[in-house]
């Protein structure tokens, strides 16, 4: 993968900036010392993790102290950042250039959950909680846990205040934004009757507990017993009563993280590819963020195709290819004709892909004219080292500005 490809691709990406859309200036965003958190969200398979890593590296090489929190990186990408094991601790990524520093970590849900328990409960109680079978399943990460824990970890990293920029990658699903609901959900759960019911003494339907509750509750607790069976219900009740005291703290933390996300200094980036499904999901994310007044910085559109020969249309290229294949030419060899025809067909395919991508992007841009967009050219291979990430970073950054600031090759 040469940077030359990046350079040809660049001209195409730059050319689109004038099309009525606002450009998203990543460099200004990451150079601003006021930017403390960048959250990358989007559907799976659009290069979200790569984008997060590339932004982290670029920010570090432009002088900031950065930590990248990834959720589930592809193995080789993880290795490229020196993350061979999942251990929930930020580690320095070697081989970066300049004064800044890049650290990276992979989220370990169970450990993060354990840390929350340890932080909020007395040692004995924490031990009891962690031995509870219900807790063990919960923390092993069913749907939803990952989202909560990613946000919990973000809160922790921010509170540590060891970095001046945190870049977060979110889980690859629609529920990635579920964390936005966490505080209100926890709130209504804690204030609700379910919790009172579950924290009532394990003897379901016992008079002491039910005294405060209306008749309907007796029916319900009986029903719960019937559904869960006595043993599971008692596991759940033990868990809930053991965690009762820490729920308050947990809720407070969720609230704080939520406020942190809304606060100045946080920027959300929605990542997508120029395909219908990916942009539909992107629209969903944009709407969802707007609903909660979350600060959206813009859209990163990955894998956009371009050509160095825009003057040659698909139609003309195809017609010429057909003419070469069918009629031949007076002086060229058959071999040259076949090769030339192949090149022309490739070009036609490329131009058609570009047209489709442009249509899809324009549809999005006409619905969301205020969302700044940065396009990142498609590279032919996968990324698995810092050079690859750096190339992506160059494509993300301002086109004209070559990294002029940072000193040369690491000292």
């Amino acid at each position, binding site marked *: 993968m040469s940077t030359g*490809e990046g350079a040809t691709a660049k001209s195409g990406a730059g050319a689109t900036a004038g099309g009525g859309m606002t450009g998203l200036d990543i460099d200004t965003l990451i150079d601003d010392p006021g930017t403390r958190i960048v959250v990358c969200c989007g559907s*799976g*398979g*659009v290069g979200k993790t790569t984008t997060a890593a590339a932004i982290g590296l670029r920010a570090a090489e432009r002088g900031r102290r950065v930590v990248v929190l990834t959720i589930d990186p592809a*193995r080789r990408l993880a290795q490229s950042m020196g993350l061979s094991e999942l251990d929930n601790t930020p580690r320095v990524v070697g081989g970066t250039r300049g004064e800044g520093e890049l650290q990276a970590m992979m989220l370990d849900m169970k450990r993060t959950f354990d840390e929350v328990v340890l932080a909020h409960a007395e040692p004995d109680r924490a031990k009891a909680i962690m031995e509870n*079978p*219900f807790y063990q*399943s919960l923390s*092993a990460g*069913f*749907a*939803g*846990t990952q989202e909560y824990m990613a946000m919990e970890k973000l809160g922790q990293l921010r509170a540590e205040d060891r970095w001046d920029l945190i870049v977060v990658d979110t889980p*690859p*699903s*629609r529920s990635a934004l579920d964390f936005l*609901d966490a505080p209100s*959900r*926890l709130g*209504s*759960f804690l204030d*609700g*009757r*379910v919790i009172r*019911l579950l924290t009532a003494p394990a003897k379901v339907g016992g008079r002491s507990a039910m005294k405060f509750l209306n008749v*309907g509750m007796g*029916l*319900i607790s009986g*029903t719960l017993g*019937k*559904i*869960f*069976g006595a*043993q*599971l219900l008692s596991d759940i009740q033990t868990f809930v009563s053991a965690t009762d005291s820490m729920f308050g703290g947990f809720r407070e933390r969720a609230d704080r993280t939520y406020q942190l996300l809304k606060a100045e200094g946080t920027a959300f980036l929605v990542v997508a590819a120029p395909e*219908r499904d*990916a942009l*539909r999901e992107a629209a969903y994310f944009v709407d969802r963020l707007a609903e909660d007044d979350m600060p959206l910085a813009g859209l990163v559109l990955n894998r956009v195709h371009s*050509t160095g*020969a825009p*003057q*040659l249309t698909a139609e003309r290229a195809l017609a010429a290819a057909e003419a*070469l294949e069918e009629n031949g*030419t007076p002086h060229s*060899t058959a071999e*040259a004709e076949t*090769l*030339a025809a*192949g*090149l*022309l*067909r*490739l*070009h036609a*395919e490329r131009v058609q*892909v570009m047209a*489709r991508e442009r249509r899809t992007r324009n549809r999005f841009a006409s619905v969301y004219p205020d969302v700044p967009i940065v396009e990142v050219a498609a590279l*032919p*291979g*996968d990324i698995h080292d810092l050079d690859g990430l750096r190339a992506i970073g160059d494509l993300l950054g301002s086109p004209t500005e070559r990294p002029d600031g940072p000193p040369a090759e690491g000292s």
Partner: protein
Amino acid sequence: MAGTSGTAGPGERAPREPDWEGVRLHVVSGKGGTGKTTLAAALALALAAEGGRTLLIEVEGRQGIAELFQIAALPYEERRVATVTPAQLGLPGKGHGEVHALAIDTEQALLEYLEMFYKLGRAGKALQKVGFVDFATTVAPGVRDVLLTGKACEAARRKGPDGRRRYDAVVMDAPPTGRLTRFLNVNSEVAGLARIGPIHSQAQAVMRVLRSAETAVHFTTLLEEMPVQETVDGIAELRDSGLPVGGVLVNMVRPPILDAAAVAAVDGDHREEVALALGEVGLGGRSRKPETVRAHVEPLLDPLLEQAREHAERVELERAQRVELQQLKLPTYELPLIGEGMDLAGLYRLAGELKRQGAA
């Protein structure tokens, strides 16, 4: 069992014997962005082609099925979304099949589940009122997954009044690979938590179906490094947990236009000859003067060669990924890239391809 299928022209080959005779529940997973929903829908069409009835289940609440079949958002209700005949898939034979679809709403599924197993009546409503349903479907671990897998197994086993199966096959558009094993195994976890009682037996029953020869878990992938790696890892994980691995659906395959050798040839000695051919075929403008022609062709040459190099690099990468997939020794199906973007015509074309290659 199918080996890697070639990419012969469409519409000419007779369908193979289907590879998944006896499978009632097809679970389709894969890395995000590999076309999971599309291929699940195409598989449901293919399985119905000869006059069957299939059910396509969506679990992630994004209404991808409705989008794909170009219909209004699906309610929580099984309804017919398409009919299919062999002719529509470009195949010989007769028949008139139906694809039904269901987008699962977890809240309603929970009430239904409670009703089915506990005949709750008034208590069910009361649970909903105190927020239990809300709690269970959003906060409580695994409940969603229990409901989704339970519903799919129920549909796969359901019988009509005539004693015959309601659906010949059920296709589930499952969560992505990273979440898959946990999703499918949720019931064994539950069976471990609730060691006796109705939840326990229900969970056991679902696990029995999922582990049986009636279930096959297929993976969609692209010929790219990350999706292939995820497929390989996902299959290993699935095997470790004793779940039945199905086939590999390789999506968006593009025919190679130039191979690496050809590109090398262009790059070396033949550059001038190609320039000549491009000029001769009229890309040098109207003038006949060699300098003018050359001046027109010259700016095309480097970009075209660059595109060819990128193409060659991709072809080489794809070759390596194919080798990787072959080592899995699983039935593998290759589906062409639908260049114009996915629509109903494209969906039927993919279904025909799956049928021809023996996936249905």
